[in-house]
């Protein structure tokens, strides 16, 4: 099936080679001038010649041709115009010239020309001192293997020092050599593919094992077939591991968001026994605070825009803490000991907050851009890119948990908080200002939610209903973790986040979510007190 096409290419190339060899080595200038020709055949021929000459000087002209920035006049003049369309450079000498743009013509190219241009450009770019350009070029060659490139790739490999580029080049070369007549070369290629290849190359290896009607294998050499077999297995294994690593990481980052959302809840619900249905809206306020901070930076501190997070994080914390304390003083403190009513009242508060934000910022989602140092990602394995923003969220939530833990366990405030939550009257009797502690605790919980909001703004859309989508999940985390238990909250958030991401590819996002909820409902039946159950008489209340 694939064979005839492949043979045709080999044959064409062979003839091309013969043809070129018959002539004198082509003149560089002439070949370059051919690029400006009106005839596409001439252009193609020039490209072939340049391909053979392999001269880095031709690179800018070739790039210009591809980018439709090459111009020719009627006197074999060839010019490259820059992006602005105003500055012209002579393609042969590289000097800036003044020409009349109207007298120039743009050589027309089609897909066929593009197909032969791209690998050549990539080959030439392999000599670029910039690693990222070399990498891009290598990837281009990897995706469009052409026999011409084999020698340049070998040459490049001799000099290449960057390991990533080397790997890509080796795969590119292997893909070319896979088509070679020499079984030894093919064997080597298969092994290289097995080592560095990914899912894309798997199909090619599988094709080697195809049998036609007569029972003939696409690959004639049994040794190569055997090697292909084991290479496929290796690729699949790596791909599987990559997938798992990816799920795990995305689960981890979901868990971090959940954790930031739930941590505040664990404090208000777990320590104070207050069900705050407006907690999700604290997330939302945190995210909108980030949005406002960006707006202010854009207006007044454009140069520092990249560092807006440094301001957004504390501001979001303070804003949400302030709103939280206001709520506690204004509403919630009158409802202590009436959890169901607290639940309803705070739901009312959440409606008011949502509507206020909607009227202020509009019902549409607003966009919060990542600072440039958080865009892009880190590729841990080929195909598994961890976005910096998510890595940052994981780090951020670890730090937050550590700080909160320290606050509660190691400071006087924490001691008071725990004292008040365990026995209010007694604590009051010991001279602790319980109502102040209530207010501060609530402020802390809300502030942490605000931090969660900043984190959310970095990975998704920010809209008035942002909090709604997290509130059910974060309650689940708190309940699952065991009320009043920070450690339990962490474990539950991790477990839920990772479970969610592992279920998603199996069952689809929605069903996955339903499964998780169902699982939770059942889990709570088994262990009403959560993973880390509070024991003793206190738990019976």
């Amino acid at each position, binding site marked *: 099936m694939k064979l005839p096409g492949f043979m045709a290419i080999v044959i064409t190339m062979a003839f091309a080679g013969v043809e070129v060899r018959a002539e004198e080595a082509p003149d560089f200038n002439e070949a370059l001038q051919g690029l400006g020709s009106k005839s596409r055949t001439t252009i193609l021929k020039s490209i072939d010649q340049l391909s053979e000459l392999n001269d880095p000087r031709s690179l800018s002209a070739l790039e210009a041709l591809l980018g439709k920035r090459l111009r020719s006049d009627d006197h074999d003049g060839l010019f490259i115009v820059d992006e602005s369309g105003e500055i012209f450079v002579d393609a042969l000498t590289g000097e800036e010239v003044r020409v009349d743009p109207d007298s120039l013509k743009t050589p027309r190219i089609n897909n066929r020309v593009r197909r032969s241009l791209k690998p050549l450009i990539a080959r030439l770019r392999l000599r670029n001192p910039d690693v990222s350009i070399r990498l891009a070029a290598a990837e281009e060659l990897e995706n469009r293997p052409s026999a011409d490139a084999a020698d340049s790739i070998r040459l490049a490999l001799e000099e290449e020092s960057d390991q990533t580029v080397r790997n890509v080049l080796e795969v590119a070369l292997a893909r070319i050599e896979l088509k070679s007549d020499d079984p030894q070369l093919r064997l080597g290629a298969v092994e290289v593919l097995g080592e560095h290849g990914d899912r894309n190359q798997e199909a090619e290896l599988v094709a080697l094992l195809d049998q036609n009607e007569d029972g003939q294998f696409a690959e004639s050499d049994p040794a190569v077939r055997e090697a292909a077999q084991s290479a496929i297995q290796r690729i699949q294994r790596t791909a599987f591991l990559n997938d798992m690593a990816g799920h795990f990481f995305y689960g981890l980052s979901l868990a971090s968001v959940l954790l930031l959302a739930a941590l505040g809840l664990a404090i208000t619900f777990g320590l104070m026994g207050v*069900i705050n*249905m407006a907690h999700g809206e604290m997330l939302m306020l945190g995210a909108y605070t980030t949005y406002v901070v960006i707006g202010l930076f854009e207006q007044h501190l454009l140069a520092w825009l990249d560092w807006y997070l440094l301001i957004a994080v504390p501001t979001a914390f303070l804003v949400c803490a302030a709103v939280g304390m206001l709520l506690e003083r204004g*509403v919630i403190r*009158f*409802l202590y000991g*009436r*959890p*169901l*009513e*607290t*639940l*309803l*009242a705070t*739901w*009312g*508060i*959440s*409606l*008011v907050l*949502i*509507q206020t934000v909607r*009227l202020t910022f509009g019902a549409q989602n607003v966009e919060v851009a990542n600072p440039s140092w958080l865009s892009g990602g880190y590729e841990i394995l080929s195909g598994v890119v961890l976005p910096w923003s998510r890595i940052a969220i994981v780090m951020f939530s670890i730090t937050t948990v550590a700080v909160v833990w320290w606050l509660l366990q190691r400071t006087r405030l924490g001691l008071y908080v725990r004292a008040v939550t365990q026995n209010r009257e007694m604590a009051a009797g010991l001279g602790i200002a319980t109502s102040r502690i209530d207010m501060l605790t609530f402020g802390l919980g809300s502030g942490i939610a605000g931090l969660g909001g900043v984190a959310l703004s970095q990975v998704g859309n920010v809209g008035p209903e942002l909090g*709604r989508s997290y509130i*059910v999940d974060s*309650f*689940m985390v708190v*309940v699952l973790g065991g009320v009043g238990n920070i450690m339990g909250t962490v474990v539950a958030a991790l477990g839920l986040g990772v479970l969610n991401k592992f279920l998603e590819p199996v069952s689809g996002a*929605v*069903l996955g*979510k*339903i499964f998780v*909820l*169902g699982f*939770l*409902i*059942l889990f*709570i*039946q*088994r262990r*009403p007190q959560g993973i880390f159950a509070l024991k003793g008489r206190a738990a019976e209340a």
Partner: protein
Amino acid sequence: MPELHTGRHPMHSARAWWLLACFVAIAAVMVPVFNLVPDEDSIWKLPDFLIPLFGKFICYAIVALAIDLIWGYAGILSLGHGVFFALGGYAMGMYLMRSIGTEGVYGNELPDFMVFLDWKELPWFWYGFEYFAFAFSMALVVPGALAFGFGWLAFRSRITGVYFSIITQAMTFAFMLLFFRNDTGFGGNNGLTDFKRILGISLQEPGTRVGLYVVSVIALLGTYLACRYIVCSKLGRLVTAVRDAETKLRFTGYDPLQYKLFVWTFSAVLCGLAGALYVPQVGIINPSEMQPANSIEMAIWVAVGGRGTLVGAVAGAWLVNATKSWFTVAAPETWLYVLGGTFILVTLFAPRGLVGLLESVRLRGRADSTSPTGSEEVDP
């Protein structure tokens, strides 16, 4: 000394029975008469659009009674009653879908959305819904069975208070996600709609609308009497005992699980009934009915009216929904403020709702005049 009742308490004073009869007469007789009899432009004419609106309110009142039974009396706050309501509605919606027959957009035996999804056969769980009796009983059985299973698991593990509320919220959330999927087989996010007829009668006829409305009023009356019967029985007092001191009740020889499960399931069945009556009157059912927000709103109806009193629950449902109807037309932007404010103010200042407020006003009046007024109906 007032009379001391043991066993079943009397349901109403004679005066309260009269009030009830008057109310039923107005709702079930006067409203239809004023809609159907006067001419179009007569000032006595009750506009047509009000009939389904009233019908909707009647259904909400049934829901409010159901929630009051479980929350006001048994102290269990459900944030998931919207599911039971919607399931009842879906069961009826499935019947209405099936009775469209081949008059849908695609002219196919199958409901339009199935044709659209390129399904060739009716899924098994749609079997039987072409029969009204089956669909109607499913509208009661499915919510009841779900509530029974869920409640059995939860109450057996002694999940109470806010924990229970939270997992009911998770339940409705999960169901909403489930029903939003096209593959689940209930029309995805469009739900079921474009109904044509019920029991062979066109839904567009004014007579049908009035008929459905009257049926709803009768259902409300039945629900009210059943709830009243329950709260006046010894079971009613036991259920409030569960609310106040469950452990003590257990050590008095009762199994709270059975009692909770009974009211919980009964309450869900009532919601299913309300949903089944609601759908033909509003003409659509979709998964947004299962949004957690809807269920919480139902709780506030009861809180506004006064939980622990049946009359209060009904009044609350009407008051909140009438206000909502007015605001969403006149000042849609402020409606959420009004609703949110209601949540806050009622819990802070009127924990016993309107009925509680009225009662305290009346008690004060009585204390001032010292002349005993006639014994009004006071719920136990």
